[in-house]
């Protein structure tokens, strides 16, 4: 789960990681009040859960107080990569001497956290990795020992010449690691970490991603979620225990298991169709879950055919069949529905659906081909 910069900065402040004086605003009036309190000049930054805000015109420096409402107005409400800017962060201007990068994330291959740092801050780490990979210092963190002082010291000495700055860097990275562990993060990042002209280190930007699997330990972090950044049908699906992602095609699919669901989408494409969605009904499927799944898929008006592909294990095919029947009773399903149900209780499912107008297929390829043809006929 991603959170906004201003939320991440509030967490930084609690950890005593230095940040600029700043406050979040939802209106031009609030923006001006904050700017007045801070003193000019200020920087106004769009709060949106994607990168590349600067290039999209979402970060602007303002010299005169009278210009603040105009600039705030020009950022509030704009769309950046499909997301609407609802809030701006109004921040004091920091005189910059140098920009650094520091972040902690999980290295999947090493199966441990890693600290990344670079003197080439201010641009995205992926970009540094492409253009100047030798400028990234990578430090493996033993999960049983934590980030050791000598490790951050070693990096500090390569980034800074003054011992006082190395010490300051140690203190910031140790706090960052404590935050990473205590809050179950999957990423914490300061980019840029700025050396001011007066010789202080300060976090000019902040990014925190939480591990979704660990949110049950941190209900206060769950409360930071910005639902406006999420597709409403995806949120509804999640509440019902389904995993759904909307795509742009016309063959809706209901599958059990994420891998099989992706493979089904791929096969639709391979046979000349376009998948309308990813949908995993999950392991223990109840008929009600199936009803919700079909309702969500049918709410997408692009859908011209539905493909149900189930390899029953924990998922029982008769539950799926009962769900299809319930959905048919509750709503008139006007698009053709192709079903391929094998595994646990597949025979019962067939009996249940004997009088239903669904189209049967015996194999995955057969089912996909049929669904693709039906979607094309409907056009």
């Amino acid at each position, binding site marked *: 789960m991603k959170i906004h910069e201003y939320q991440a900065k509030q967490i930084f402040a609690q950890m005593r990681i230095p940040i600029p004086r700043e406050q979040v605003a939802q209106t031009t009036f609030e923006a001006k009040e904050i700017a007045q309190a801070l003193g000019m000049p200020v920087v106004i930054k769009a709060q949106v859960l994607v990168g590349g805000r600067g290039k999209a015109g979402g970060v602007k420096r303002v010299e005169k107080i009278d210009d603040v409402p105009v600039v705030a107005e020009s950022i509030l409400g704009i769309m950046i990569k499909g997301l609407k800017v609802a809030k701006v962060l109004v921040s004091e201007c920091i005189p910059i001497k140098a920009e650094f990068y520091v972040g902690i994330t*999980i290295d*999947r*291959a090493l*199966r*441990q*956290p890693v600290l990344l740092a670079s003197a080439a801050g201010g641009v995205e780490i*992926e970009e540094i990795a492409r253009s100047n990979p030798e400028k990234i210092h990578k430090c493996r963190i*033993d*999960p*049983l020992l934590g980030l050791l002082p000598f490790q951050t010291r070693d990096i500090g000495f390569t980034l800074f010449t003054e011992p006082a700055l190395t010490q300051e860097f140690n203190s910031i990275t140790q706090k960052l690691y404590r935050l990473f*562990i205590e809050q*179950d993060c*999957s990423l914490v990042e300061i980019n840029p970490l700025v050396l001011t002209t007066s010789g202080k280190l300060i976090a000019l930007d902040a990014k925190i991603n939480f*591990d*979704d*699997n*660990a949110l*049950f*330990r941190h209900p206060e972090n769950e409360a930071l979620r910005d639902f406006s950044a999420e597709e409403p049908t995806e949120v509804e699906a999640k509440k019902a225990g389904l*995993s759904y*992602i909307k*795509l742009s095609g016309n063959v809706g699919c209901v*599958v*059990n*298991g*994420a*891998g*099989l*669901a*992706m*493979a089904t*989408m*791929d*096969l*639709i*494409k*391979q046979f000349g169709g376009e*998948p309308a969605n*990813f949908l*995993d009904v999950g392991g*223990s499927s109840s008929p009600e879950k199936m009803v919700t799944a079909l309702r969500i898929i049918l709410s997408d008006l692009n859908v011209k055919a539905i493909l149900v592909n189930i*390899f*029953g*294990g*924990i*998922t029982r095919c008769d539950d799926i069949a009962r769900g299809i029947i319930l959905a048919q009773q509750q709503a008139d399903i006007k698009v053709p529905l192709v079903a391929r149900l*094998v*595994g*646990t209780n597949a025979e019962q499912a067939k009996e249940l659906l004997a009088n239903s107008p669904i189209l049967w297929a015996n*194999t*995955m*390829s057969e089912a996909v081909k049929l669904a693709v043809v039906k979607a094309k006929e409907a056009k």
Partner: protein
Amino acid sequence: MSILIDENTRVIVQGITGRDGAFHTKMMKEYGTNIVAGVTPGKRGQEVEGIPVFNSVAAAVKATDANTSIIFVPANFTGDALLEAIFAGIKLIVCVTEGVPTLDAIRAIAVAQNRGVRIVGPNCPGAISPGKAKVGIMPHSAFKPGCIGVVSRSGTLTYEIAANTGDFGQSTVIGIGGDPVIGTNFIDCLKMFQDDPETKAIVIVGEIGGSDEERAAEFVKEYVTKPVFGFIAGQTAPPDKRMGHAGAIISAGTGTATEKIRAFQNASIEVIYEPEELRQKLLARI
């Protein structure tokens, strides 16, 4: 032979009194797996499917000499359950539970490595050596004894692929799990399959996210002499979206299906694009 599990595997079920734990205990027992004990703290003295329940893994191991554990406990207790099994002397732990916090998995895997314990998972369907033993949740109908080794990051897609091995059957099928951090990776399984005389060919079932498939391809190029087939799910997956599995995500342009397929091709791994082609391709090579 087979890998990881066989007739001599002595299994305890952690979380045996829960809904999933009890159901799959019954299924594994029906398959012929030697389930010797169950563990649910506070339920000592009960029985599930005729199997005695203990309060702790240590007590269960002491009474039954178990060497393998399968974990069904809820995600918030799984980190502790893994460590409990490691400290009780279990050598192979299959963690079925989905939704385990990544840092809990990382810590348990680090401890397991220090003590020579293998963890499979979390978020995995487990392993089956058809005709011998099943330490997992897969439906029996998809599997039969034979000579193909299958290793996969998925659950149901694994069953689909295994069912398409036709008359060849399978030596062992392992689901290594769909989480970003897992205890056993493709390379670990490739090593075991390469060394297993019963396995004649290997199928790798990968998906988008991470770089485990790429590293597997490098390993195949260097060390594997048996025919290897590869399938990658997620060619149509959009970037930056988690496709059901916590680990199935294309982030910052890496972890795409295209990269993985190219890595397979570079290592002379025969790529399968449709599960049903597998049988024909196996016939052509074995």
